[in-house]
Every structure is written in C-alpha cells, then in structure tokens.
C-alpha cells in the first residue's frame, strides 16, 4: 500500500511553546485513522499544518510524495486534502444545495466560476450527496436553519463534494445526540470505502464505532502510541496519560 500522507520530524512552535514536537506519522492510502489524545495534545495544530494554515517550524509534510511547505491553503485543498472544522463551518447564508454546489465546482478559478454553470455531472454529484448526507428534503433551506447535527453532516458532505483524496475530520461528533453521532459514524465508514480519512475524536463510543483500522494517540505534541483500538486501550502509557495512574 502506498503512503498518502507522510509527516517527518514535524515541530511547530508558537512563541516558544511547542504545539507539535518531532512528530512522525504516516497514513496509507485508503486508511481510516482515528487520532485521540488529551486536551492540548496538538491535534488541531496537526490538521492546521497539513492544510497549510500553519507553517511548520521544522520538519516536513508530504502529501502523495509532495512537500507541502509554503503552498497556500487553497492549492493544498485543490491537491486533494479536505478539512472539516471542529465547529461546523458551513456558509450560513446559503442554502444546503448552494453550499454543496460551491464546493463541488470543478474549476475554482475566478472567471470559470463567474461564467460557468453547474454541469449535469456536478448536479448529479450534488443530488447524490444530498441523499448521502440525508438532507435532500432540506436542500433549499438556508444553512442557518439547520440543526447542529445537520450542519455537521452538511459539512462532511461539502468535504466529499470537494472529492478529496484525503479527508481531515475534526471532532465530527461534537455536540451531537447519540442518534446523530451514529449517523455520522456510519457516514464516515461509508466514505472510508473510497477515501483516506484522518479523524480526530474524543467520544470513545464513537471512536470504537469508526476505528476499524489503526488509532493514533498524541500526547504533548508527540506520538504516544499507535495501533488497533484494543491495543491502544490497554497500553499503560495511554492509561497513564488519560487516568494519571495505572489501573489497579
């Protein structure tokens, strides 16, 4: 299996504080990886570096073998990395369909956007996505009228509409009800069939649901351990980090 994402010796510091510290990480194409870790472990910074929002202080990020240093965010996005934010960031003043359509646009340069129209394949994609995320009945509703869970789903839909090779998902279950959480989990699992996914999550129920492959534990900006869910669960270092002591 080829590596879609490789991170070597990554360090990011803010005013002397090391948010990431010599982190090494790699992801196989087609893998769904869950990243967990206590607060302040550097999970969000990790996504920031990959998407170009934050520049690494040291080390490098390779996406499909290409170094992402100094590439602006929008180009990284076009290369095939999609990101879902912690709190859902959808365009509240646009309808659900418009939200999807905007991201679905194949040519994102200024003039094609201005003069172009959604072609049939794009329309089909949007229609299909609306079904996938279960919002086809609300397609013409303004996004600010959606519930929190619906917004989460919409944002995941927008991610997919971008047809990225790598999905970065930051706490997709935050603030959702149990039922919604399960829906989102199922959605992610179905997406994992055709995408590589990195998901950050706290909710252990949810992690268990989606962690079919490996789980990575971050701690203080570095990799603590990596492995299958039950391995990780019983790793004394992980327990130490989470509980402050080894269980008696």
């Amino acid at each position: 299996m080829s590596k879609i994402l490789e991170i070597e010796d990554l360090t990011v510091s803010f005013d002397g504080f090391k948010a990431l510290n010599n982190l090494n990480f790699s992801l196989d194409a087609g893998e769904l990886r869950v990243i967990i870790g206590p607060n302040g472990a550097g999970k969000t910074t990790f996504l920031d570096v990959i998407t170009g929002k934050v520049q690494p202080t040291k080390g490098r990020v390779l996406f499909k073998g290409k170094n992402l240093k100094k590439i602006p965010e929008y180009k990284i996005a076009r290369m095939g990395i999609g990101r879902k934010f912690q709190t859902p960031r959808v365009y509240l003043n646009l309808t659900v369909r418009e939200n999807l359509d905007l991201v679905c646009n194949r040519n994102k340069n200024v003039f094609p956007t201005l003069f172009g129209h959604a072609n049939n394949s794009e329309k089909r994609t949007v229609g299909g996505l609306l079904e996938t995320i279960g919002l086809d009945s609300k397609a013409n509703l303004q996004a600010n009228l959606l519930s929190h869970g619906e917004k989460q789903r919409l944002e995941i839909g927008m991610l997919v509409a971008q047809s990225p090779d790598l999905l970065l998902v930051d706490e997709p279950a935050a603030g959702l009800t149990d039922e919604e959480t399960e829906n989102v989990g199922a959605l992610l699992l179905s997406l994992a069939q055709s995408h590589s996914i990195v998901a950050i999550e706290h909710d252990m129920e949810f992690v268990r649901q989606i962690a079919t492959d490996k789980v990575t534990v971050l701690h203080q900006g570095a990799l603590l351990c990596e492995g299958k869910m039950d391995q990780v669960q019983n790793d004394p270092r992980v327990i130490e980090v989470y509980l402050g002591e080894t269980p008696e």
Partner: protein
Amino acid sequence: MNNETGIAIKKKQQRNKLIETGTIIALVIIFAVILPAVIPAFRLRLIGRFLSLAIVALGIDLIWGYTGLLSLGHGIFFALGGYALAMHLNLQLPEGQLPEFFTLYGVEELPWVWQPFYSFPLTILALIIIPGIVAGLIGYLVFRNRIKGVYFSILTQAALLVFFNFFNGQQEIINGTNGLKTDTERIFGVLVSSPGVQRAFYIVTVISLILIYLLCRWLTSGRFGRLLKAIRDDETRVRFSGYDPTGYKVLVFAISGAIAGIAGALYTVQTGIITPSIMQVAFSIEMVIWVAVGGRGTLIGAIIGTMLVRLAQTFLSESFPEIWLFFQGALFLIVVTVLPDGIVGWWTSYGWHKSRSLLGLQPKLATYPSLVEDPELQQERETIAKK
C-alpha cells in the same frame, strides 16, 4: 423542520422575487416615464443625479453587502469616471485649440493624458476601465496580504486622500481644485446643459441603473455571488475549499470601481462640473450610509437608501442647513445600532416576520476580545504575523 416548511420557504422566496420584480417595474415606470413628464427640469436633473449616485451605491453594496469589504475610497473611482467624460467634453473644440483653463497656467501643449479622450468610444471605455484597473490594483496590493476588515477601510480612505491631494495639486493637467466643467461644453454638437441633452442623460442614467442592477443581480445570484457571500461569511473556509479569495475580491472590487466610474460620469454631466472635492473623505463615507440605510446585501436597498437619504438631505439642507449634519450623524448611529439591516432588511424581517426573524436580531458579540480568543482566528493571525 420538514419538507413542508422547505416548500413554504421556497414559495415565500418566489413571492419575494415576484414582489421585487414588481417593485422594479413600478420604479422604472415612475422614473423613466412619469417623472420626466411631471417634474420641472431642474428637479429632474436632481433626480438624475440621485439615480447616478444610486449606481455607485449598487457598486458599494456589491463589495460591502455581499463580499464584506467596506471601501471608504469609492470617491476615487467615482471621480475617475467623471473626469474621463469631462475631459472628453472639454476637448470638443476646434482643431488646435486647448481647453480654456490651460491658459491660466501657461500650458501650451495638450498633456499626453488628454490625447485618448478625443475619441468618444475610447472615453466610454476609459471611464469604465480606468477606475476598474485602479480599484483592482489597490485591491490586489491590499488583499494579497490578507489585509481586510477595518485595515482595508482605512487604507482605502488614505488612498482617497492621496488622490484628492494629487488631483488638487495638478493644476497644469486637470485644472486642480476648479475641476472641469461640462455644462458649457458640447456633446455631438449640442450644448450639454440644454434640456434635450439633459433629458437624454437622465434616460441614459435610468437605463444604466437598470443594466447595472441586472449586472449586480447576475453577479450575486450565481455561483460567483454565492462565493462572494461565502468569502464575506468565512474566508478561511473558502480557502480550504480550494478557492483563492484574493482573485475574487480583486475582481469584485474592480467591478465595483468600474460601476463607480460609470456613476461618476453620469453624475458629472448632470451636475455640470467635476472637481476633486468629490473625493472628500465625507462623501465617500456618505455613500456607505446610503447602502446601510437601504439595507446592505439587498441591491434594491442600495437604490432606495440613496434616494431617501439624498432627498432628505436636499430637503433638510434647503430648509435648515444647520440641521443636516446632526441628522446625518444620527443616521449613522441609528442605522448601526437599531437598524443594522437597513430599511429593506427591517421590512423583510418584520414584514415577513418569522421567515427571516434572525436577520433583525443579529446577536451582538458579547465582548471584543472574543475574536481574539477564537483559536482559529488567533492562529491565522499568528501565521500572518509570521510572514
């Protein structure tokens, strides 16, 4: 929320659309047909001027209402358009003769910048293109550094002051403070100030307003327009979706500048004079208040706002010149605090209440550093700072 409400909303949107179309047709009939027939010539000229100001308000709405860029420097583009046309009119002279004011400064040869304005088509092109290019350039220099928000506003304001100084100081080229007058010039051999020409300009203004309104409608309704709103609401998200906001902002700012240029040209011929004072700081901020009063992000609001505020100004400053500044100042305060969505916004949110009840009750942010504390924003700032 279920499917029925979705349909209801769609219906409501259709109804809104119908009402909008109706309003526009009614307005067109009033302005293009009825008014010229019933109103005395000089009042009509006044209305014509207001309508040309409404055009620039449309341009401001395009960038402020839809894209979230508050330009306080639109006077520049307005003036550039006005000067372009005025220069053409001033050149309607017998071969070899210079516009009269040049003699005041002992200028004997036509400055090169005037040369293209002999040609009418070139002039029309210039009055759209030049402001557009200037706006695009200013926009590019600012946006590429991700300078936005108030910084953008302040920089446009400073640019305005610079242009004002420059135009004021260049007596030998464009007659400095005195500006260029157009009333006594000829267009196609007819005196600009003659009633026929003025009426023609009025009609041209109404037509331009409609065309530019339609242009703005087109720009703001398609994918492009949705992207503008997206940039306004969440620029970072736009970037992560694979769009480069800089290009869009530059383009829309340039378009807005070009619209201001057209407005300036129409305003100039219906005023009879263009001077650098059109680039005074106050005038450009005033443009913003027209949009704010009408309701930003609504296009039609920009037109309504302009007409109302200008009419109020004419009435008030005719009757009580002292009061106008108080009134205008109060207008800024009221619009910002009580009517943040302007007249149109208020109407749609209360008139069609429930459908958009959220609009009027925009939640106020509790405190200012809440921005600073947003980790997303904070990190973005830090990245920018590091560059």
